[in-house]
């Protein structure tokens, strides 16, 4: 196991290097002069020269890449062209928002998805089964951004149950320690802020969680059906165990491996979906920040945001892979 972990960690290094190179290329591959693209057509020659020098665009590409890589390793991603703020600081403040949203969505998706799949599999071909599966099918095809808008339309605009956007109502104050608002409000025992932060989280989490929820529900159903057919389940029933115990203990535990795989795969994909969800709900995370940076052609900021999201994606997948092996000892590297 230890050997496998080391092996996986080592093979992750070239992937991360590749990512950094691709991200680095975004600025170099821009048609025309990147400095002019960023500063606009009317920029003065001095400003252009200064920006080129600042970004190292006047040096050969390998020196530029070396500098970029060194910066990444030291956590220094340069300054945003637009705001002149340090990119690393901006990312540090926004990343917890993205993680909080992604994790909440996944918790929601896994809980509801597994429950729906289990119920579906035990009531096979019932109305409940059909409606769950039709719902799951629709969920998989649902564009995140449309679902987000519909949720706002129904639950914020028409019913007024949930806030339209943001993470916290402006009239509330919260002392930030970790920048995870749920955690911070618990740490400072600020219950109004906790309730408010949760309220803000509901709609974005549903929007982002719907696709994984549907996929998890479908996978749980098919995996459960597979297990429920096996002899040890009949033995458990024959021993006189109550149905709930057979289903949730004997069957679900054995059906869990493919479900965990799917959850892991989806966790990484959530980071992509977060880009759209954050934009709809004006969620102050890395995804929305990245989109704004692309629109403003703020390349250093784009590089920083992309580097962070892609690295997280790789590390999450690595973690899931290792966990997977831990959960199912039958799989050996």
């Amino acid at each position, binding site marked *: 196991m230890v050997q496998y972990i080391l092996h996986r960690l080592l093979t992750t290094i*070239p*992937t991360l290097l*590749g*990512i950094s190179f*691709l*991200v680095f*290329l*975004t600025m170099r*591959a*821009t*048609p025309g002069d990147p400095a002019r693209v960023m500063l606009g057509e009317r920029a003065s020659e001095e400003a252009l020269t200064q920006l080129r020098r600042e970004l190292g665009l006047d040096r050969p590409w390998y020196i530029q890449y070396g500098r970029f890589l060194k910066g990444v390793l030291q956590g220094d991603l340069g300054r945003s062209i637009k705001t002149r703020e340090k990119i690393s600081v901006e990312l540090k403040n926004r990343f917890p928002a993205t993680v909080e949203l992604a994790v909440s969505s996944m918790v929601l998706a896994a809980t509801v998805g597994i429950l729906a799949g289990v119920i579906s599999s035990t009531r096979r071909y019932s109305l409940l089964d059909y409606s769950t599966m039709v719902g799951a*099918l*629709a969920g*998989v*095809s*649902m*564009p*995140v*951004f*449309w679902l987000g*808008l*519909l949720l*706002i*339309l129904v639950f914020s*605009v028409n019913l007024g149950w949930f806030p339209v956007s943001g993470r916290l109502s402006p009239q509330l104050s919260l002392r930030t320690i970790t920048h995870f608002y749920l955690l911070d409000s618990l740490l400072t025992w600020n219950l109004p802020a906790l309730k408010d932060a949760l309220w803000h989280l509901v709609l974005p989490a549903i929007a982002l969680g719907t696709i994984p929820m549907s996929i998890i529900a479908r996978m749980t159903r*098919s995996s459960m059906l597979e297990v429920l057919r096996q002899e040890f389940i009949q033995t458990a029933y024959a021993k006189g165990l109550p149905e709930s115990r057979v289903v949730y203990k004997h069957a679900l535990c054995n059906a869990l491996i493919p479900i965990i795989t799917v959850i892991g795969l989806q966790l*990484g*994909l959530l*980071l*992509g*979906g977060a*880009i*759209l969800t954050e*934009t*709809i709900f004006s969620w102050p995370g890395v995804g929305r920040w*990245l*989109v704004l940076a*692309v*629109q403003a*052609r703020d*390349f250093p900021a*784009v590089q920083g945001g*992309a580097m962070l*999201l*892609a690295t997280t*994606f*790789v590390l999450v997948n690595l973690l899931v892979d290792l966990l997977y092996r831990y959960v199912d000892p039958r799989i050996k590297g």
Partner: protein
Amino acid sequence: MKGGTGEREKGETSGALALRLSHSPSLQSWYRLRKNKAALGGGTLLALFLVSALLAPYLAPHDPLEQDLYGRLKPPVWDLRGSREHLLGTDDFGRDILSRILYGARISLQVGLISVGISLGFGGLLGILAGYYRGVLDQVIMRGMDMLLAFPSILLAILIVAVLGPSLFNAMIAIGVVGIPEYARIVRASVLSEGSREYVQAARSLGAQDLRIIFHTLLPNCFAPILVQATLGFATAIVEAAGLSFLGLGAQPPTPEWGAMLNQARALILRAWWVITFPGLAIFLSVLGLNLLGDGLRDALDPRLRE
């Protein structure tokens, strides 16, 4: 599969029976596909999408770009304030939403064809090279593909658009490039598994050249997984292009692209529900249709994969 092959099921015509008992694998797949209600539903949705796309100029009651500043934000026909002139209402420039959605189908069809074309063309070629020649070339290609897969797809698409500049055409290229690794992997896997079969060795021992073996012998036998992936990939391409346009990085106004329509409609969410509902519904139904058909095709072409 229920029932023996000998007994005739209720209402089955002799033609259908002959088809079911036929030994031709493609006819058998067709029969399995036709029996799959979900796939049939998907096919119907897809047909609707194709008809809208191809016949948009004849079906659309208005020019999709024509503005009517006196008829802005008209609700759909069943609303008291609606009119039969605009069945699904109008947007904030007084443009007819139904017409824009019909023309939007054209754009989505283009997006799907071009993006899947790029992914399939380049991905297929790389997959063939990797699977057929193996060795160092295989390693180099597949590690490159792993690198692309190390990005969440929409992030990679956004990066490519960031480089090329926001436009519908660049969005199609970006989505096409993002899809390449998936096709490369599928084609490589098919080429690897088929490549060791006897019929390929037979072709080789008959003195066939590499190109002939690849295009005449190998590829036709890799058709099934590629078709399934292309159908599902078409759906992904539509959603991703709409997503990029929604972020303002794809189609630009006043193009009647579904995602761009939603992006413009965001500001109207408090006033006009129909402007947000219908373009999204169009995306949803097209994607649902393609997904259903793709799943059905997978089951029909390879019964072993059936859940």
